[in-house]
């Protein structure tokens, strides 16, 4: 029983972190219909930056997100303006390939500059845990989860309570209508992309503590996050949260009762099973079939 509770608690903690990582991806997809394959590479890039800052200055990796988040916001803005905006009107498959190429460029640059070795930031509390009842709460997981939830709450607040957020949501639902009331599609798109990228600032910092990583890790991450987005329904923020929780649980439960090696596979099996019964994902809206 304790073992089960332990696994569920861990699964929820991991799910929360996954949700944060997937939120930017689903936001970008929802607003501009672009699947940012480079999202995983952004995470690994920031994990690398965080690791480097931690090693050089000893700054706590999760606190370092105060620096990395604005960094990624600016980075996202620049990347969108210089690169992504060029394929705004091309078929969506082109943006997939473009961001895939960009992911490889980031991977290649990291390979050359940081080397092809596993890294992991290990702050002082790295291996400590809180104990509540019979359950242990690893500090790193807990802090990561709390940071993720805080950022998701801010993101939710920005999207629902501010003019900027309403503009982004308006552009998501009806770009031409939004343009008519003064919400420019391109400015909103750049903003949404920048916000989506900024979430990887925190996400990547958490990643650097929780998981060992190396430049090519971004493939694992992007397929995992895309799985969450597909499961939850593409473009849906609540969907990403639910999808991330389900997959976090599935992963830890398999790791506890099955084997660690198969836990990633269970991840993909769950996605396929859900798609079998709900082709549009859990929260995905069925598109108007006649839309050209």
């Amino acid at each position, binding site marked *: 029983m304790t073992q089960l509770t332990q696994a569920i608690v861990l699964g929820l903690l991991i799910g929360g972190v996954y949700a944060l990582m997937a939120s930017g991806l689903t936001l970008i997809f929802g607003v501009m219909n672009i*699947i940012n394959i480079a999202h995983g590479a952004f995470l690994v890039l920031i994990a690398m930056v965080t690791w480097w800052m931690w090693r050089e200055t000893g700054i706590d990796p999760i606190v370092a997100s105060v620096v990395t988040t604005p960094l990624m916001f600016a980075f996202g803005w620049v990347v969108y303006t210089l690169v992504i905006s060029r394929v705004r009107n091309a078929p969506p498959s082109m943006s997939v*390939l473009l961001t895939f*190429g960009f992911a*490889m460029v980031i991977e290649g640059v990291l390979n050359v500059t940081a080397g092809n070795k596993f890294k992991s930031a290990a702050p002082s509390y790295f291996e400590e845990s809180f104990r509540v009842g019979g359950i242990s709460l690893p500090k790193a997981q807990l802090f990561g989860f709390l940071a993720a939830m805080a950022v998701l709450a801010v993101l939710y607040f920005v999207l629902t309570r501010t003019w900027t957020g309403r503009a982004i949501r308006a552009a998501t639902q009806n770009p031409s209508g939004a343009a008519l009331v003064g919400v420019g599609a391109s400015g909103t798109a750049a903003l949404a992309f920048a916000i989506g990228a900024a979430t990887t600032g925190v996400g990547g910092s958490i990643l650097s503590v929780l998981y060992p990583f190396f430049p090519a890790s971004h493939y694992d991450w992007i397929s995992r996050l895309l799985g969450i987005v597909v499961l939850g329904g593409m473009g849906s923020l609540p969907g990403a949260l639910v999808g991330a929780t389900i997959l976090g649980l599935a992963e830890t439960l398999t790791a506890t009762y099955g084997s660690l090696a198969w836990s990633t*596979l269970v991840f993909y099996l769950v996605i396929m099973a859900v798609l079998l019964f709900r082709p549009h994902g859990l929260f995905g809206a069925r598109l108007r*079939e*006649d839309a*050209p």
Partner: protein
Amino acid sequence: MTERESAPKSTGPLRRIPRIHLIALACLLALLLYPVINPWEPYPQGVLLLGFLLAVQASAWNIISGYAGYVSIGHSMFLGLGAYTAGIMAVRWDVNPLLSAPVGGVVATVIAVAIGSVVLRTRGHAFVIITIAMLLAAQIIAVNARGLTLGSDGITLPLPFWGRDYQNIPFYYIFLVMVVLTVAFSAWLRRTKFGAGLVAIREDEGKAASIGVNTTRFKIVAYAASAFPIGVAGSVYAYYLTFINPVGSFAILGSVTIVLACLAGGRGTLYGPVLGAFVVNLVSEAANVYGGGDSARVLLFGLALMVVVLFLPRGLLPTVESWWRRRHPADVEFIDQKGALEARAARSGPDLPSPAVSRAARASDEAGAGRVLLEVRGASKRFGGLRAVDGADLTVRQGTITGLIGPNGSGKTTLFNLVTGGMTADAGEIWFDGRRIDRLRPWVRGHLGLGRTYQVTRLFKDMTVQENVVAPQPDARWRTMVAGAVRGHEAERARELLDIVGLARFADEPAGSLSFGQQKLVELAQVLMLEPKLILLDEPAGGVNPSMLGVLTGVIRELNAAGMTFLIVEHNIPLVLELCDPIVVFSRGRPIAEGPPGTIREDPAVMDAYLGEDFRLEPAGPAGPPAGEGVR
């Protein structure tokens, strides 16, 4: 475009082979002779051999991602599946990989069908995501299913049975033959109705479904067809390598080279993927020699992918072709409507070729005119708070030209979408020809005999007029799917139908280059290919000039005389009054009046609907102006 060039031009008495095929043939000959001329150079042979392997993969990838437009970024999974099939069979049962290669192809195909059946039922982006996830999943399985795959240790295969003196020359020829077979397979597919359907899916999937293309089946079959050659190649490749392991066999970089090769060469063309494969392979080899191994290659391929997407999105071959065509302009006939009008005038009388209306004629013979063909009972559709269609009833009888009029936003087009399956009704029933159809997929409704045109034409603009007309699938049979689209019975029928609308001489022009009115006629011919019993026309006269309109109404009348039933939405009230009987008036999502033109013209409710409640003409009398005039 290559595939269009491969069609024999009907102009000119000489059957001439397009230049591009001759170039391909010359390259093939050179490659066949190369090991004979230069047998003691294993290095260039090895480079070419890997080029062949990539060409097979890129050509196969092109079927799902080029023709059908569904990009896969996990296609090297099939190479790994083929390799592991051969490896496992060789280790367990001592089967030579060359013999087990077809099994590798079958395994890849089965997996593709399984994955495709799950993710290709919907439109959109889930597919591309799942392809990369499945590639990684395959890698995980290969690492962990140690009993079957020996895990990370990998599998060592037997050495080739031929002597060392032959080096890799047998592999060279095996892979070269596979390139030829794969390209031939791809060329054949593209020239069938199946191939036309795939391109239709790429250009407008919703429209493709409405002309009877079972988009789900087409996409799954295309995915499977693109997996088979790669599976076979994977088995042979394993034999060539003599050692396989999970990371090498299910490599993402492999997938990227496939994508890059096809994209750089020209996605959707026949030879583009092959050309791209050689270019990518040479660049990759150069990077190996002069650069620093794998990590430099990741950077290089990433940059190359970005550059190709941003600056060469169409690929080398189409770019070179359009450059060549600019340098050597061909005589393109001046496109206007004159030809269409003359062609029609030249045709004698209303003797319609039988295939055009066979099903409709049969239906009207069997049951006689006047029978209820389409019945909508209490259909509703809401978009948020707006009730576009609100408990509407509508009856269309066999043999009529029923008109549907009503102000903008009264729900006419939405009703069309509910009938043809573009949207699903929230409530109500729709019956067609004695069957309830409101839960059927759009293409099934097409197979039953429902055809429609669109307010703004939705032709596949990059396809030729001929291909547009040949693409529809009148039934669900596999035989129809693989029927030739360029030659053969179906192509013949398409030409006859183009003759009916008087556009046969534009058969080989891209549909996008026709005038709007001509496009409307092509769309009608396209619908006729479905052998419909009922045709729904959405504003056929909108944006069409008067002389073209004459052609259009002439065709409608002739078809109707031959037994075809029509339901027409139209704002040109005089035209409707002249052409249609009965006429149904729609307002606020439901019919408010129905009757022959004479009655509708006088109906005060119709005036209200069009001009608002406050607007009142003088009490309708013989002296009052005809309503139709006021509405225009």
